[in-house]
Each structure stands twice: as C-alpha cells, then as structure tokens.
C-alpha cells in the first residue's frame, strides 16, 4: 500500500472529563476524497484542528505528509489548505484584497500574486464580484471565496469543514464537482467533513462515520452497506388504490408466502419484509387477488440508512448531550432513497 498522506494514530483529545476525540486511528491515501461524517459535536472539527496543529492532542499523533502536525505545524500548514466551517473575511477589504493578503502570507512571489488571485476568483465564479467589499458577499459567495483562498496556495491536501453549508443546491453541485475535478486532475487529497450525507455520497471515495469521538465505520459506501445490511431483510412496500379492510382475509395467505417474514399494513401501504427479493412474486400475488397496485418500491440502503443505523446504536450515549442529538434530528433530512 502507498504511504498514507494523512495518518492519525491513537489521537485523543479531552476537554476536562469530556472525550471529544477518543483514540482515533485513520489513514488517508494520496489523491483520495475522504468524507468525515458525523452529527454536530461529534469531534470532527477538533480532529481537523489537531491535523493542522491548531489544537494539541491529549494523546496520539497526527501526521500529515509525513510531518508531525503538533510539533511542526508551520511545515504542515505550508502543504495543507484549510477552510473553516464559518469562514470569515475582513469585511472592510475587497474580496480580491482578502485573497491577495492570504496569497502573500503563504509566501507566493509578489509578481504572481495579482494574476493568480484574479484567476482564482474567475475559477470559483466570482470574477464579476472581485472588487466588491467582502462584507457585501452572501454566504454562498463567501464559501466560494474560501475555496479560492484554499486553492491559491496550491496545497497537496485540502481540508474542508462543512464546505456546502449555506450554498444553494445548484451551487453545491458545482462546488463538489469542482472539488472532485481538482482532486482527479491534480491529485489533491481532499478531506471534507459534513452532515449532508447525500452530497458526501456523491463525491467521496471513502467515508468515515464519526460519532461521539469514535470512528464507527470506515470504507466506501457500497462496502459499508453490504457489511451492515447483509443479514437484513429486503423490504418491499406496495401501495394499493384503496385501503384494505381491517379484517383482511388475504393477510394470512400473504404471510404464508415463501420468504415473507413480516407484513405491516399502514393505510394503503403494505410493507413486506422478506428474506430475499420476492418483489415480482408479491406483485403477482396482489394482481391475482384482483387488487389495484398504484406503486411498488423496493427499499435500498444508502448512506443515510447506514448513518442512521450507526446513529441509532449510539443515540443512548448521547442523550445527555442535548446539542448533538436534538439538533441533529432536526437538521438532517432523512429522505429514504428509493
């Protein structure tokens, strides 16, 4: 295997008695897009700050590009571009001045600063607004400016903390597309943390599910899905034209079908859990009983179900931490992938 570009070994961070990050081991290969998923307060940002040497770990080592981030933060920062979750700019300066300031600080030669920053503004789609004050920028524009800010230094690794927050859906698509393209063309390693599962699923090669300071799962979405739900039921839900009567005579026959494990009736929708995929048989069965079928859905497991599964297992530990569970449940959309 290649030498990992980001290597965390036994990384631990305690705030008093609270363990924000608990013995985290993680390896990210060069050129990979890695998604760090977890509810708010799971320790994602803390982990990222430790990778940049902005926070000292209580125990363990974070190595980025083979450099210990705690003892040599400057060398790490030269190679890593970091966009914080609520990225801020000097409101009284124009956007391009903000960008040029960062470019100079990161040691770009003076004769390249102007051209490069202009190119970057064009790249992230802010070419028309580059002489506006940064204070007049919208949230989405700031996010793009943040990306320009990260890219202008030509980093080997990009760390994005909640990069899609506050951008409209089409902007998110562009944004993630751009990140993916850059990563593929230039071989940049990308680590992004998010709780927008659907978006992460689209763009990441590998994801890690991070709850309560622990990495619960690590791998690509398909592998995770297989591991988790292999012993599980296939669920098919069938919607009928009319709600079946309470005392339904065909129910025993349905339950007696080969492979059927459970049947749940909810209004017009009937959910059938089976040990293997018998959707065609079910349809034939209902048609044979002369019932009108309006829709048939076979449930598939995406990242959200995976995530939900992990989260359900851990929710008891987090009930005391009201911030993580309460906010989480309100914020996360739980669209069932159909």
């Amino acid at each position, binding site marked *: 295997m290649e030498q990992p570009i980001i290597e965390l070994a036994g990384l631990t961070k305690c705030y008093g008695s609270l363990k924000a990050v608990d013995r985290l081991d993680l390896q990210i290969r060069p050129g990979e897009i890695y998604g760090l998923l977890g509810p708010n307060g799971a320790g994602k940002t803390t982990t990222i700050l430790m990778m940049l040497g902005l926070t000292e770990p209580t125990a363990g080592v974070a190595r980025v590009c083979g450099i210990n981030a705690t003892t040599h933060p400057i*060398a790490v920062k030269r190679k890593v571009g*970091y966009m914080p979750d609520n990225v801020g700019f000097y409101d*009284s300066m124009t956007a391009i001045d903000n960008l040029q300031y960062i470019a100079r600080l990161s040691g770009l030669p003076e004769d390249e600063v102007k051209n*490069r920053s202009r190119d970057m503004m064009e790249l992230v789609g802010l070419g028309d607004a580059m002489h506006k004050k940064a204070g007049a920028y919208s949230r989405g524009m700031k996010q793009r400016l943040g990306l320009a800010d990260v890219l202008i230094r030509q980093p080997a690794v990009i760390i994005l903390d909640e990069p899609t927050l506050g951008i409209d859906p089409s902007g998110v698509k562009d944004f993630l597309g751009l990140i993916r393209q850059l990563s593929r063309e230039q071989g940049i390693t990308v680590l992004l943390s998010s709780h927008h599962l659907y978006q992460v699923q689209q763009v990441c090669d590998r994801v890690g599910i991070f709850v309560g300071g622990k990495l619960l799962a690590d791998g690509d979405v398909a592998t995770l899905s297989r591991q988790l739900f292999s012993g599980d039921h296939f669920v098919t839900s069938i919607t009928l034209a009319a709600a079946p009567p309470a005392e339904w005579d065909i129910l025993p026959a349905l339950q007696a079908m080969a492979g059927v494990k459970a049947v749940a009736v909810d209004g017009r929708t009937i959910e059938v859990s089976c040990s293997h995929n018998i959707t065609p048989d079910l349809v034939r069965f209902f048609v044979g009983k002369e019932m009108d079928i309006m829709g048939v859905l076979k449930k598939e497991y995406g990242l959200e179900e995976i995530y939900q599964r992990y989260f359900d297992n851990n929710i008891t530990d987090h009930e005391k931490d009201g911030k993580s569970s309460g906010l989480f449940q309100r914020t996360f959309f739980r669209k069932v992938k159909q």
Partner: protein
Amino acid sequence: MANPAVYFNGLFSGRLNNSRWLKGIINTTARQPGPLGIMVRKEIADHIRSWRFIVLLVLLLLTFIATMYVSLTNLQAAVANENDPDRLFLYLKLLTTSDGSLPTFHIFVSFLGALLGISLGFDAINAEQNNGTLTRLMAQPVYRDHLLLSKFLGALAIVSALFLSLSLLMIGAGLLITGVKLEPEEFFRIMGFVLLTVLYVGFWLALSILFSVKFRQATTSALMAIGVWLFFTIFYRIVISMVVKGFFPDPVYLSEADVLWYNNLLLDLLRLAPSQLYTDATTTLLMPSVRSLGPLTVEQMAGAIPKPLPFRESLLIVWPQVCGLVAAIAVCFALTYYWFMRRELRS
C-alpha cells in the same frame, strides 16, 4: 463556475516551480517582506482606513492646535520671566506654557494617549475571532506570535508617526513664527518626549490587546480597559489619600526624616499608576530645571544654583520611570503571549 481546466493549466505542475526558480536567479535583488512585514503592513492600512482612527486623529489635532495657540499667546510673558531658569528654552516653553485656561499638551496626552492606545487595541484579537478570520489566518504558514506582534507594532508605528509629525510640525511652526534657532539640547529633549509618549501609548495598547485576548466580546474588553484607565486617573488618587489618612501617622509628631520617608512612600505608591510615571518623566524632560521628582531636604538644596540641568542629567532622573513603563508593557505582553499561544482557536 468556469471550467477549471483552463485556469489550472500548469498551475500545479512542476513547470511553475521551474519558472519561479529561474525568476529567482534573474531577479535576486527584489526582496520580499516576510509574513510579519505583510501583517504589520495590513494592520497599518486597516487603522488608517478606519473611522475610529480618523476621529482620534481629529481629536488629537484639535488638542494640539488649542494648546499651541494658548502657549503661543503666552510665550512672550514666559520667555521674559526672569525668575524662570528655563526661560531660554523656547521650544520647550511652547510645549509647557499655559495661562491656566487649558492644560498643557503633555498633560492632555496623559489622558488622550491612554484613550488612543485603548481604542487602537481593544478589538485586536477578539474581532478577528468573532469574524472567523482568526482560524483562517492561523491556517496559513505563520507563527501565532506574529499576529500579536503585528497588532502591537502596527498600532505603535501609527502612534509614533503621529507624535513625531506633530512635534516636528510644532518645531517648524516655532521656527517660522519666532525665528529662534533650535538648540540640539532642545531637539533631543523633544525627541525624548516623543519616545516617552509612544511608550506610554504602547502601555495602554499592550493592556488593551491583553484584554482583547482575554475577553471574547470587543465591548467587554473595551470596557475593562477604560475601567482600568478611569481607575488610575480618578480613583487611584482617592484610594491613596484614604490610605494616607487611615494608616499614616500625623506629621506633627514625626521627625523630619520620617516625614521624608512617608512622603517618598506616598510618591512611590502614586507611581504605580502609569499616567503618573508619564507625567513625571515628561515634566522632567520638558522642564530642564527640575532636579528631583521627590521631596528634597534643605541640606540637599544647599548651595544649589537654580540652573537648568544638562540633557544627560534629566535623562538619568527619568530613567526609572522609563524602565517602569517598559516593564509594564513587557508584563502585559508576556501575559498576552501566555494566554494566546496555546489557546484553542475556534470561532
């Protein structure tokens, strides 16, 4: 967003590094400022463009013009005063003469300088933190102390330029109006005064930066700094006089040596206030005939000729004061450093 392929042509490839290396060889004379230089430059630009600074500048200019006007109108009487051994130092007289309607410039500065320092520094760090620029800045390859230093040096550069130009303006105007030659001694004394003023403002600056690290809200840190300033300018004297009344014995029953000892103790207590240090030091520098900042006994004064001291002697008298101011700045800065360097940076 545009297609990145166009813009990233060669940007991340080795070609670019080669061209930079080539340019470095051809153009070896062009020196690029380090990160600290860039940050200080940005701080200065920020201050100059801010409304806050313009308001302070106007305030200071008004004070300067008013005190200069008062001293110019009274200059003739002051210079003609036979009893004053300092009457021949015309330019020092410009800074210290007043008819009582207005305090002199250096007394004004002991108030305004504090305000200047506080207003330039009270939101140095916490504003960056609240705007979310602090994490972004710290993710760049710069040392943390560069940020503290740039905040301090940037504001200090502005203050020095301000007071230096004000005093040079005064000297120039004095030359034009009176036509009297400027003695080197006077020049050194005025420059010493400027240096002291910068140090004094530097103390308040360091203190307000300290509060800006300690308190997350800019208003809290401003209030704390102004509170300390008010305490030292108004309440400190009252507290000291209460202490004197409560604890010091009645001078009627004391020997002369004891009175002297208590007097010195009282002065030392007062000198814990930075404004006292500043006024002591500037008074000595601007009035060459001041021989001591404490009480002098009759024996010590015996045989002394009322004559101005040379510059070096005045400097020796104010040296403890200068040391005190520098020490106060160093303490503030060290505390700031201690609190900031290992702190968790989160917005």
